[in-house]
């Protein structure tokens, strides 16, 4: 796997930074409160290293929303929230006057839609900036843990253990609710190389 140059790393962070900014704006509109963002940390690494690093950072059960985006570059985009926060997120989205029973019923649907909107915001920004076109799958919602997430999703996407992980770690926090989340993108080696080639074209005009 080709390592990113400093300039490529910087450009990728910037492209995702804009995409995540857009996603944060979208999330803020959905839940009606400010969303604080950390600076995105972009790493192109192996699934194994990503799993270890991620588990060190987050070991709570997670609600993960995954969508596969296919095209010249194919990627599995994953949005993760601690499972304990998901009902709270749904409540902020649909309003507090919905009874708990009904809220629980629509939790899966609402999480899928939150993922769909946020992941599409980031991917669309990537598409528009790098001139790539993507076809998105429908969102899938799963409960996972930090130590298995990349292996599980890599396997589900037929990537085996060899896939690169473009790990975009961003902590976003809904200030009033103490909800944080993470984003990650899994790419196989050919897709990583194509992404880097597009990035080089973007850097050098």
């Amino acid at each position: 796997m080709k390592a990113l140059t400093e300039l490529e790393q910087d450009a990728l962070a910037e492209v995702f930074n804009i995409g995540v900014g857009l996603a944060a704006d979208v999330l803020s509109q959905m839940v009606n409160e400010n969303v604080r963002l950390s600076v995105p940390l972009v790493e192109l690494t192996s699934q194994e290293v990503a799993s270890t690093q991620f588990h060190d950072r987050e070991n709570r059960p997670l609600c993960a929303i995954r969508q596969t985006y296919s095209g010249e570059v194919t990627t599995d985009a994953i949005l993760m929230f601690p499972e304990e926060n998901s009902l709270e997120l749904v409540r902020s989205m649909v309003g507090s006057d919905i009874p708990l029973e009904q809220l629980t019923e629509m939790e899966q649907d609402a999480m899928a839609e939150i993922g769909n909107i946020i992941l599409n915001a980031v991917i669309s920004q990537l598409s528009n900036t790098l001139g790539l076109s993507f076809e998105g799958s429908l969102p899938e919602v799963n409960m996972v843990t930090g130590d298995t997430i990349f292996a599980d999703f890599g396997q589900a996407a037929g990537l085996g253990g060899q896939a690169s992980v473009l790990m975009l770690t961003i902590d976003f926090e809904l200030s009033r609710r103490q909800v944080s989340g993470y984003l990650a993108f899994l790419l196989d080696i050919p897709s990583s190389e194509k992404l880097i080639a597009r990035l080089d074209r973007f850097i050098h005009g």
Partner: protein
Amino acid sequence: MEQVATAGKLLIVDDSKVSRMRIRAFFSAQCPAWDIQEAGTGDEAIALASTFRPDYVTMDVNMPGMSGFEAADLLLMYNPAVRVVMLTANIQESSRKLAAVRHIGFVAKPPTEASLTQALKFLLGA
């Protein structure tokens, strides 16, 4: 925006129940005389449209089965006068272009008061 007093029929097409709920709540408040029905897929929308005959449609893009653009094409083929607005998270330039060549509306999700007002204005030709 002032309430719309005239009657009309709106079909909301979205595979997300939560989104349908939010879209319905907005249009029910803003257009109290409108008859509103919902479909969870493009196929359901086509089946429902033959009896419901909507004047207005809000359409998601990524849904199980046919895409929102395919469904919009069929609805427009059956009734070229129907006003369709795509209401979608897929805000890639390529999606915007697909809407533009069809002369249909394009509004980015999430369904908020601002985005739905934009959709309503398009539907009314305002």
